[in-house]
């Protein structure tokens, strides 16, 4: 029997890792990637908590929330990357102006 606790704690670690990336990076693609990592870590925590119960089947409501969340995160990523590509084309930089001094 799988112990969901491992996965819940793994989710917490993944969220922390994603926050690290989001704070550290200035390149917007890397920040959007970090956003996805944080999101999936949160879902892992929710899913692990949802299958902690006495019966073995995972909580279907939690599963549905996670699927909804994955779709929403994908939509946000698509829009963010499209904005980034358009912005980089207009400005020549993949970083916000206030972070641009990090450009080589």
């Amino acid at each position: 029997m799988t112990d969901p606790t491992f996965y819940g704690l793994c989710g917490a670690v993944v969220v922390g890792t994603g926050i690290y990336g989001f704070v550290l990076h200035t390149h917007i693609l890397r920040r959007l990637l970090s956003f996805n990592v944080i999101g999936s870590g949160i879902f892992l925590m929710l899913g692990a908590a949802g299958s902690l119960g006495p019966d073995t089947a995972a909580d279907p409501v939690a599963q549905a929330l996670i699927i909804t969340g994955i779709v929403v995160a994908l939509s946000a990523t698509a829009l963010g990357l499209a904005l980034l590509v358009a912005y980089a084309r207009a400005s020549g930089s993949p970083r916000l102006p206030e972070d641009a001094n990090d450009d080589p």
Partner: protein
Amino acid sequence: MTLVLATIVGLPFAAAMLAVIFGRYGGPLAAAAVAGVAVATAALIVIVAEGQPVTIDVAGWPAPLGITLEADGLACGFLAMATLVMSGVVAQGRAYFYNTGPERRATWAFWPLALLLWAAINAIFLSRDLFNLYVGLELMTLCAVALVAIEGKAETLAAALRYMLVALIGSLLYLLGVVLLYSAHGVLDIGLIAARVTAPTDILAAALMTAGLAAKMALFPFHAWLPPAHSGAPAPASAMLSALVPKAAFVILMRLWLEAVPDLSAASLLALFGTLGTAAILHGGVMALRQNRLKLVIAYSTVSQIGYLLLVFPLAGGASAAQPGAADAWKGVVFHALSHGLAKAAMFLCAGLWMASVGHDRLEGLRGQARATPITAFAFGLAAIALIGLPPSGGFTAKYLMLTSALASGQLIWAVVLLLGGLLTAAYLYRPLAMIFAKADAAPVAVSRSQQAVPLLLAGTAILLGIASSGPFELFQIGSPWADIEGLE
């Protein structure tokens, strides 16, 4: 009743979908949606004003399995405000995003985005389910970001990306809080959360959700993204972004602390909210004083005005720190949010008209606009009265109620903040007003009279909210945590 609520959220969605397909008819479709939702909202207010909130279980499944929508007095007020703002947005938007000849990018994209934004906000005002609120917030955010970027210039794209990065982190923090609450209690409905047995993780969950919502509503110190985003968007979009978007996040924040987890609010926490609000009022006000472009003045004013909303928390208190003036604080902050929404939308629409006639929004260029566009200048003046909180505007009613509440609970410090904020607002609005009403000859303008009158509708309603305040006053009480308490008026 079910049909009324379904219309309020469903009609903007339906109009948006049609506007995607029939790109050239976005404006008329939006106008039809506004008319339909206006009728439905009026009907809803009549029903709710009888004394009970309207509640429906979506798909027929009651919480915790299903999602509940509830129209209380507060939701009615915000829905009505949103409909009014949208009518102004549609009226001016048809001049901005009017399609002649082949379909163009911005004129196509604006209408579905504006309609979806509105639908998402209506859904947020009505929803009682914390995860459903998350989905609504995300829809709202994506549309708002795309609207900020719609001009397609490097600066506006940067503003949109900056906004999006903050908003995405805000979403994740909010979601994390929801996940912790659901994992601990197995419910998502606000009413069922309120009835839970408190778990040790709840305070972390509430803190995360609060931080997320604060980022979304540009609360100091998460406000840096707002001025470039709101001033870079076209005026009709700015009107929506400043009047509606922060209010949606605020309504969730208010429902969270005053309805879902009032048991968690300790005095120190409430004081922290008040302090952040004060910092926003002062910082936004001082920054607004230092701007030389009208749209930036208005945008920094939003940063400042959002601060007032936060004062509701120390004034109302929570379960452990309930204050004698709580009912008045609740109603006062709703008055403030509605009055600010209407006045701020009116101001952005005025700025849009002047940008169309002068070609820019630098303050010195607005000299003498009162002569060239008297109706618009009058509307701007009325909006300023409401924003400063002078009688007889809705802003005055708001300040009066919040002051009464502060005095009733002996929290003089917040009364001082309220008065100081009013002075600051008057100070930063003085310069644009002085320019606009200066005796100077401005070039005649090419803006039609009917277009000039659009902001007047909104600014006039902001004033009317104060003149006829007794009806809304009764309404906002319905379904509030203080529904049984008589007001102090």
